[in-house]
């Protein structure tokens, strides 16, 4: 059996299976496409990648803050600057992510088999909110003290207990710099893969190009590519 599969060019090792799975995950040429449907030439399609660029800057500035430490971001001019960059890139991330959400909502972007794309976007948003909230808690200033003491009773009323204790600074630091960013990266990664797999959602009423219709019928995908 194995010999037959190998003769047919289908090696059975797990690594070969992974390579085949990854290569079939996104249609050929769609990982970094150099062409898009004409309806993508609109400012409303810019906000997804603007959010992604903001996320990269958030991670970079967050890593610098992690290396510098609390005293550095409180007491040095450069630390203040990087701390402010982290804040404002987060503000820009949420602003662009929410405008991206509005744009995708009004064009019902879950159409055409894009339900999971929509859902991974929702989870990206929710995990990002949790990450931002834990960031407020680890500023090590009066603001973070106020927020944590205001939040503790409400959270305790949910029964979450010690699993998410906003008064536990060490736990909140690890939630903010490790656990929740990992969740954001996984969700955003899945979201991007699904966008590349199914293509961007067309506006309501827009006619997909002819080659998209034929490829959709052939593969069950709706990736949407034009010359």
């Amino acid at each position, binding site marked *: 059996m194995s010999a037959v599969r190998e003769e047919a060019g289908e090696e059975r090792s797990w690594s070969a299976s992974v390579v085949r799975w990854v290569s079939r995950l996104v249609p050929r040429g769609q990982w970094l496409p150099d062409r898009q449907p004409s309806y993508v030439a609109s400012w409303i399609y810019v906000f997804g990648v603007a959010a992604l660029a903001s996320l990269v800057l958030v991670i970079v500035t967050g890593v610098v803050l992690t290396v510098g430490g609390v005293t550095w971001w409180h007491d040095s001019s450069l630390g203040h600057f990087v701390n402010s960059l982290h804040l404002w890139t987060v503000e820009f991330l949420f602003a662009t992510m929410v*405008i991206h959400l509005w744009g995708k909502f009004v064009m019902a972007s879950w159409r055409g088999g894009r339900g999971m794309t929509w859902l991974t976007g929702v989870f990206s948003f929710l995990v990002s909110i949790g990450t931002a909230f834990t960031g407020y808690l680890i500023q090590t200033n009066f603001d973070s003290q106020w927020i944590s003491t205001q939040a503790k009773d409400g959270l305790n009323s949910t029964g979450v207990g010690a699993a998410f204790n906003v008064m536990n600074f060490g736990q909140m630091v690890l939630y903010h710099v490790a656990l929740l960013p990992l969740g954001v990266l996984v969700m955003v990664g899945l979201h991007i893969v699904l966008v590349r797999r199914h293509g961007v959602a067309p506006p309501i009423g827009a006619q997909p190009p002819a080659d998209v219709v034929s490829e959709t019928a052939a593969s069950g995908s709706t990736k949407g590519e034009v010359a």
Partner: protein
Amino acid sequence: MVTSPPLPLAIPLDAGFVHWGFVNLSVPNIIVIVTMIVLFVLALVVPFPKDQA
């Protein structure tokens, strides 16, 4: 000799709030929300630059 660090110049002050029924929004948050709505509308109506080629 140990000296205490200088107080930050930008001490957060009351930014002002807008009350409307159960809605209670700070002025800075209103500015951000209005800016986002304006950007959203502009993104829908402003034409995207066309490729000159």
